[in-house]
């Protein structure tokens, strides 16, 4: 097989470069024999992009020119006072129910993982019940609790003694019922996410924490949960977006969030499609906004786990403005530590070069 070796020892044992050594040992060290290759072309990407562009433009134009859609109605209602109030209420419902349900979920997850059989079964029962029934039914249940119990009384059971008694519909108005339904349902789902996050933390972390005298509770809050957060946050971002849209289900108990308001308006002016477009625009906007805190939370809890944190959008923009000058792999960012093939560049000796033990 005479063609295989690019580099082989000469008769006297010295190494002879048979060609210009395209993949030779010096490829990364010397600049003058760097690869001057024509970058690989990707013609199909352009073809597919062009086809898709034509399709999208066609759909957009046909929607825009559809005579059944009244565009002035959309612009009239998108910043309507009632719609804006609905948007605010939707946002409040989403944030409040997510925050409370997350706290509740941590409690449920800890109970589920506890060795205490009572707490463990209780948590299992809760998750079973609230995940096993439709959210819509739970909303109706809390909204019409007054039909089941017209009075709510605090006192000693099976006696006539009572501290106070209150009308159910006064104690739980529609907003509270909606919040309760969303929170309790979400807690069951979030509990499983938190539990998965806690299970992802290595057993050795518990042992290390216990070995320095930390109590189980201290270990949970200082050692386990901060590490679990890295696993918990991406699916919780998902749940938040899901929650934002689930608030529209509260229309069945007449909570005045943005979807309910839109249906009320359209039942008067009969512009159903236009108002649904208005509502969809707002949902899209809110989901986009909600993904911003997720990015920064992930970055925060990723510290110490990745050697280099992902760049912030600002840093990314700066990098795009300083493009790579040469073909081939992207230059390594300053401070990045990679053991890839291009470690001889000027950038690799970043601030953290303490990988080797000091002598």
């Amino acid at each position, binding site marked *: 097989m005479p063609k295989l070796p690019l580099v082989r020892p000469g008769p006297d044992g010295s190494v002879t470069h048979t060609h210009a050594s395209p993949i030779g040992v010096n490829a990364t060290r010397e600049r003058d024999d760097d690869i001057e290759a024509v970058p690989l072309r990707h013609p199909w990407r352009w073809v597919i992009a062009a086809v898709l562009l034509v399709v999208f433009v066609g759909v957009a134009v046909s929607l825009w020119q559809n005579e059944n859609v009244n565009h002035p109605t959309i612009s009239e209602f998108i910043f309507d006072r009632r719609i804006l109030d609905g948007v605010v209420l939707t946002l409040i419902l989403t944030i409040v129910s997510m925050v409370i349900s997350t706290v509740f979920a941590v409690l449920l997850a800890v109970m589920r993982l506890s060795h205490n059989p009572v707490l463990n079964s209780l948590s299992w029962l809760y998750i079973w019940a609230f995940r096993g029934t439709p959210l819509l039914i739970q909303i109706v249940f809390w909204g019409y609790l007054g039909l089941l119990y017209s009075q709510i009384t605090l006192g000693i059971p099976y006696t006539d003694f009572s501290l106070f008694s209150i009308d159910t519909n006064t104690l739980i108005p529609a907003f509270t019922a909606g919040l309760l339904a969303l929170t309790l349902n979400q807690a069951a789902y979030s509990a499983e996410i938190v539990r998965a996050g806690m299970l992802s933390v290595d057993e050795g972390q518990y042992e*290390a924490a*216990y*070995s*320095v*005298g930390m*109590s*189980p509770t201290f270990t949970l809050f200082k050692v386990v949960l901060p590490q679990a957060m890295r696993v918990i946050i991406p699916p919780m971002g998902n749940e938040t977006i899901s929650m934002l849209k689930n608030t529209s289900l509260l229309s069945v108990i007449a909570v005045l969030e943005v979807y309910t308001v839109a249906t009320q308006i359209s039942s008067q002016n009969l512009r159903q499609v236009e108002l649904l477009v208005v509502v969809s625009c707002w949902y899209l906007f809110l989901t986009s906004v909600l993904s911003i805190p997720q990015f920064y939370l992930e970055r925060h809890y990723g*510290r*110490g786990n990745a050697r280099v944190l992902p760049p912030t959008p600002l840093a990314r923009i700066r990098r795009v403005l300083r493009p790579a000058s040469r073909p081939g792999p992207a230059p390594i960012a300053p401070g990045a530590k990679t053991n890839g093939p291009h470690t001889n560049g000027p950038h690799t000796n970043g601030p953290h070069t303490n*990988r080797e033990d000091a002598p």
Partner: protein
Amino acid sequence: MTDFAPAEDAAASATPTASAKAPLLNARKVRKSFGGVEVLKGISLEVATGQVMCLLGPSGSGKSTFLRCINHLERIDGGRISVDGELIGYAARHGRIFEMNRREVARQRGGIGMVFQRFNLFPHMTALENITAAPIGVRGLAKPTAVARGRELLDRVGLADLAGSYPAQLSGGQQQRVAIARALAMDPKLLLFDEPTSALDPELVGDVLDVMRGLAADGMTMVVVTHEIGFARGAADEVVFMDAGVVMESGPPAEVLDNPQNPRTKAFLDSVM
């Protein structure tokens, strides 16, 4: 360190001969089973204050399990372990033995440091935070005091300038030295090492062993599970050879390592040296 001198002509005996006072670690007939398999079959050992004991033996011989029993990471099925005269994991009251609650166990563990094979540093904390977390959170030390002490300990293990680094940015040897500093931060009476150099690249082993030798010279009481025969020979006051959950042989390193009496010890030492 003066109450026990590993002399070549010391009488061959299964127990340390040195101190008249009560040993710091006293294990009596410790038994432990995992799912019906008995991994510790009655281990009796004593370590006096300031002494270093090395546990040797093939894997699966129960030496790591025994070490984990000492700070109650494993619950023993029989026998007794006491540290500094205090029963571990149990309290004796009115002639009966009661299981300790978790706060009591945590307090006991605070006095017994442990260094793990896989380091087990907290990855979300810097080197310094790893060291100060327990003194601040468990002992209630003021933060400036804990930080000053933490820096002092990092300096002692030769890592003074890496206080702000996260574990992922450190080499294995550096991580293990931070782990030793973390254990020292609680001022333990007894320090346990579970194969502290087994997960390290060969060239990084020396730094960790140097730190351990320094601790031994300073009079720290240590129980070390290791395969580093050289370390055992140089730093240990007593070497214990375990196999299949039983202590086969024990004594000063010169005797056990150079003139083993038990054929199992002989075979093991031949295979590792």
